[in-house]
Each structure stands twice: as C-alpha cells, then as structure tokens.
C-alpha cells in the first residue's frame, strides 16, 4: 500500500466488497484488475450484481481482462483508455440507483478521476472504496495553465501544455485527482534544476 506523510494525500483503504450493496460499480485500470480479482473471486452473490469497467492500459499484455471475464460478472466493459472508461462511468452513474457502491482500483491519478466523477454525481467521496495498484507515478496539475500532465515520475517536470518547468509539490487534490505543480525557476529564470526520479 502507498504510504505517505502528505496530509492531503488520500488513504486508500483497499477494495472490500460491501455485502449490503445492491449494485457494485467497479472502475479499474492496469494492475487494479488484481485488486478486483482478489476482492470478488469466489463471491458469486456479489459478482452477479457487479458492473466492472476496466482499462488495461500498461497491463494489456497480462490478460487481466480475461480473468475478469471469468469471474461471472453481470457486466464487464473493457475500455480502450482511462478517458473512455470515465465517459462510460459517467453514463452509468447518471442512471445509478440507491444502493450502488462505487469502487476504484489502479494508479493514483485514475482513482482520483473515478472519485471526481463520483463526487460530480453526488457520491460522498468517503463512501468510495479504493485500492492503489501499479506505478507510483503522479498526475500533476500545472497551477499556472491548469493543464494535467499524466504519469509524472520526476520533479521538476515540464508541463505538457504550457511548457513551464514544474516543481511537483506534496499537495494533492481529490477533486482534481492530481498533485500541484508550481514553477520551479520563477525566481531564477533560465536555471533548471536536474530532474530527480522520485515516484517511479
């Protein structure tokens, strides 16, 4: 599990099946499939009421999707990307009924996106069950242009939108599902500190 002394960073409590839920709505990406398998395998009562959305991403070669399909889920959507998964998730959330429990598993930026989608549909963020799996790469929001840079493993990092060299601060927004990036050389123009590998 991801351990951090960053106060604003969420604690991911793990993917525990809520037996009282009428519908399990599960979003997973990459290695997050392993968390779904661990939680739902052998739970026929739960899988019969489960909708799983899965984006294989970097784990495409691992065949996790086939293992998920073998769970006997009520519904499994294998999506080509995180973005299309979130689009589908929003559609499902828009018609979700009382008793739906939302779950998210995968890298931190993905969990943040799922939580943000849930919150936008009135789901209390504290009720969402989450498990971190896979890379420690961060999703970073540039505080200057508000653009998101994905899969950040070094600091400073170049904003993929405005090109400013960003120091990745240890400050995380659940609403945005991202860490904050702030200009690293505003006080020393032209100087670029060497990038340090921090969160691989």
């Amino acid at each position, binding site marked *: 599990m991801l351990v951090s002394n960053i106060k604003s960073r969420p604690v991911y409590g793990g993917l525990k099946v809520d037996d009282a839920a009428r519908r399990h709505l599960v979003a997973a990406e990459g290695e997050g499939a392993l968390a779904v398998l661990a939680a739902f395998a052998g739970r026929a009562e739960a899988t019969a009421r489960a909708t799983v959305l899965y984006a294989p991403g970097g784990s495409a070669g691992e065949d996790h999707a086939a293992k998920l399909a073998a769970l006997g889920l009520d519904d499994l959507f294998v999506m080509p990307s995180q973005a299309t998964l979130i689009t589908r998730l929003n559609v499902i959330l828009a018609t979700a009924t009382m008793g739906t429990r939302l779950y998210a598993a995968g890298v931190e930026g993905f969990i943040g996106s799922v939580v943000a989608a849930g919150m936008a549909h009135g789901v209390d963020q504290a009720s969402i069950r989450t498990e971190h799996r896979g890379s420690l790469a961060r999703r970073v929001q540039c*505080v200057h242009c508000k653009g998101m840079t994905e899969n950040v493993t070094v600091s400073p990092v170049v904003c993929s939108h405005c090109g400013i060299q960003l120091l990745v601060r*240890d*400050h995380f*927004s659940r*609403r945005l599902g991202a860490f904050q990036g702030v200009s690293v050389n505003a006080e020393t123009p032209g100087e670029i500190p060497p990038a340090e590998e921090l969160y691989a």
Partner: protein
Amino acid sequence: MTIQFKNETFRDDFTFSNSPEAIRRFPFPFDKDQYMYAVNIEQHMPGPAKSATEFPIDIDEHYVSEMRDRALVLKADPLRCQSLPHMITAEWDLVELLMESMAKHYPEHFTLTRDGDRWHWINRPLEIDQTFTFGDAATLPCPPMEYVTRQCQGDFCLLDQRNDNLWMDAGIVTTQADWSLDFDMGMNFMEWHGPVPLAHDMGVFDRALKFLLNLQQGRPVRRLNWTMTVNPRLDTSPENYHKWGIDRTTVTPENVGNKVHLRVELQALWRLPRSNAIVFSIRCYLIKMEELVTIPKWGRRLHRVLRDLPPELVDYKGLTRFRDTTVDYLARHDDGAPTSPGFFPD
C-alpha cells in the same frame, strides 16, 4: 467618520502606501520578540477605537483601490471565485452578514434597507444602488457571494460542516499568500493545511479544528497570520507565481525600505445562521518596512522576530532571498532597548 479613499495600485507601478493614520491602525501581529506557531484564536470582540478590529468588518482607505484590483484579478482568472451548488444558502448568509455589518458601522458609505425579502443596498464609494430579492439569485447581476465580496475587502471562504470536518466548498480568493482556491476547492481542513510545515506535528490543526467545529452563532473568532511580500502586490497567487516570483530577487539595501512589506492576515470566522456553514475571512494588510519603523517598538520587534525565525518558516513563507537584507535594514532601527508586551504602539 468619513474615510478618504485613496486612488492607488497593487500592480505595475505599485503606488500603494499607508497614510500615518493607517500605519497607527496596522494590525501588527507580534506581541513579543519571537514567533512560533500557535492556535492564537481569540473572540472577535471590538478592539480599540480606530483599530482594524474596532468593527467586525473593517473598511479602510484602501477599499476602492482594492476592489478595483479584485475586479482585474477576476477578469483575468474567473476560477478565483468558485462555489459548489450546495453552498447557495451559505452565499446568502454571507450577503446578510457583510451588508448588515458594513451598513451598521459605516452608515455614511453604505445603506441597507430591508422590507421582508425586498432589500435595497446602496454602496456610495463604488456608486452602486441595487434592489434585489433576498434568496433569489436571479435578482442580482452575479451570484450572491461574488456580488457582495466584490464590494468587501478581504478574501472569503465558505466552509461546509459535515462528517466532523470543515470543507472548503466556496470562496473568492484574490489577495492570497500563495495558495490556490481552485486547487484546494472541496478539501477538508486537514487537507488544505497539508503543506504547512511543523504545525501538524504540534497538533495545532487538530486543536483548531475541534474548536471551530463548535463555533457558535453570534460569537465570531479571529486570529492573525503573517508573511512578507516584495512590492505591495495583493495577488501573490500560485497561479501567477511565474510572473511575480522574480520580484523576490529585486531587493537591495537601497530599496528594501520601500519594497519589502509585512503582510498581515486578519482571519475571522463566523457561524452562519441558515446554512450552519462557517465564513472564513482573510483580510490582507500591507505595510512597507519604512512605514513600519516609524513605530519604534515595531521596528525593534520585527528585527528580532525575523532574525530568530526558524529556518523551516523562512522557507515556507518564501523569505529566503530577502530575509538577510531586511534584517540588516531593521537592525539599524533596533537600539536593543526592551519592548513593551502586547501588539500596540507605545
């Protein structure tokens, strides 16, 4: 008493300055010769006449120019004002709190007439005359929180209370000391204070949160916070840090007295009656070093505070590049004489 409003700028040519009266009423934040974090919350009771805490909402000579600066910030970056949909009742609570207080304590400048839900608001310094229906946002030219805070000095956050925590679910923030409302929106009390060093381990935030969750209606509280800013710039936002950060490298022994400012936040918190939310107001006061040393006690004391500040705080407050130059300047105004206890000038 009529306030003479100044015409001045907080950007570009930086014509901001304090009159001698404004210097005397500056909310100097150090009651002794050293500084460390403390919860330092007290009842928001009326302070001495003419002081910054004489009235719950303080309007001063910078009012008109500060409101002009706020409008410029919002025009360039509308994300400085945000409100989640469930905060609309708290927005109206804020309209009532600010209009009532401003009209009561500054009747020569502001007038509020209430006839049931039909309200009539007159703001003479900004030449506004508005009739509206309280509770009906369609009767104002913009949403209620934005409407009233475009006419009141200070940043304002509206904190929702649920799950034994406070949540930053609305706010207007244009005069901030390097924090982003857009980034912190929706965070709880512990989360938005995440980047503050030392204080978490001291238990400061646990105690402060416990205190605030029990805040009672009609019993507002306040505290002072401080940092230092190069040039009298209100908008020291992270959003624009790539533009203003360079200012910190421009301090020299020749210009330090005019360029370096003590920046004090008078933070106050009120429980709101309809929404049970909390208003968190952050009112920024700026004073140049050369203005500050006209009060001998403050010159001596700030020299000692700044000289002995823990290194983590020097970094966190962004003082690293100009602290030494400022300490050297203030040293010339510190004869080593003892200072009297308390905040106020001798």
